[in-house]
């Protein structure tokens, strides 16, 4: 087998992965988020253990603990109930706990966006092991695809054009490291990578993801044109 598969095969595969991720994990896919879990591995494993401990509790036990925490934080509810107090026009005295009291103006209008589309599908946090398996799948999948195409070979550069533009050997590696550092900084600042924003965010019509994706693509096109000019 040689050459690339048609573009629509790749598009269909990406769509399958994005939709499959939503169906299985009930949360959008984002590769940089999964990678960052590996960076915070120790804390992630502790969170997984706490999650497992919570999962062993019955719903009733969990609610009892949450109710106790609510009383501790907000104090006993006012006679009319929390909902009435929260939406009252005047600033109410909300409880006598340690919580800072909110003026009514700081409270949102009822029927906010939070509930839309999320009530019926509680989020599921995949374990670190599941995400590690996903990352391993990316590497193995890339390897298998390269072997099937007959083009697998280890390399430390990004091809002849990269070498001509940025140099080879230590200089080329330094540029790759710098690029990786900038990419890591970028996805952290942007709250996601091209997969999270481009694939998952845009498909959910998230405005922030659309802006982020337009920026990714715009920057990539500008750099491509710049490099094409230098290579010509």
């Amino acid at each position: 087998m040689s050459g690339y598969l048609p573009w629509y095969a790749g598009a269909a595969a990406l769509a399958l992965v994005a939709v499959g991720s939503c169906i299985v994990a009930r949360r959008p896919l984002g590769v940089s988020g999964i990678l960052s879990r590996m960076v915070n591995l120790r804390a992630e494993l502790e969170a997984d253990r706490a999650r497992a401990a919570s999962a062993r509790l019955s719903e009733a036990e969990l609610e009892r603990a949450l109710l106790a925490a609510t009383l501790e934080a907000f104090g006993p509810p006012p006679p009319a109930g929390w909902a009435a107090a929260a939406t009252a026009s005047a600033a109410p005295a909300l409880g006598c706990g340690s919580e800072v009291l909110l003026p009514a103006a700081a409270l949102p209008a009822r029927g906010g966006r939070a509930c839309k589309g999320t009530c019926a599908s509680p989020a599921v946090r995949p374990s670190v092991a599941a995400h590690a398996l996903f990352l391993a799948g990316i590497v193995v999948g890339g390897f298998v695809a390269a072997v099937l195409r007959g083009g697998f070979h280890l390399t430390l550069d990004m091809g002849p054009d990269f070498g001509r533009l940025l140099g080879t050997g230590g200089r080329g590696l330094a540029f790759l490291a710098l690029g990786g550092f900038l990419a890591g900084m970028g996805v952290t600042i942007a709250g996601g990578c091209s997969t999270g924003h481009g694939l998952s965010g845009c498909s959910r019509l998230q405005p922030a993801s659309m802006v982020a994706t337009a920026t990714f693509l715009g920057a990539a096109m500008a750099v491509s044109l710049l490099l094409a000019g230098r290579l010509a």
Partner: protein
Amino acid sequence: MIATATRPAACSHVATCELFPKFQRRASLKVWQTFYCEGRFPNCARYQLSLEGRPVPPNLLPNGRELNLQVLGL
């Protein structure tokens, strides 16, 4: 003219928050939702950790305290 800061009306992380569905389900827990998820979500400890890309413990409450399971005798 009074300058008003523009901020989303509700937390954008509710879809992935493990506690949010629990706050929604029970009226007596909705105070968390009203105060944090739909109000001062920038002050939510879970939101802040999530924003930093750090793991969010499932038992971490929006006010930064951990859910005390000792009240259950566990």
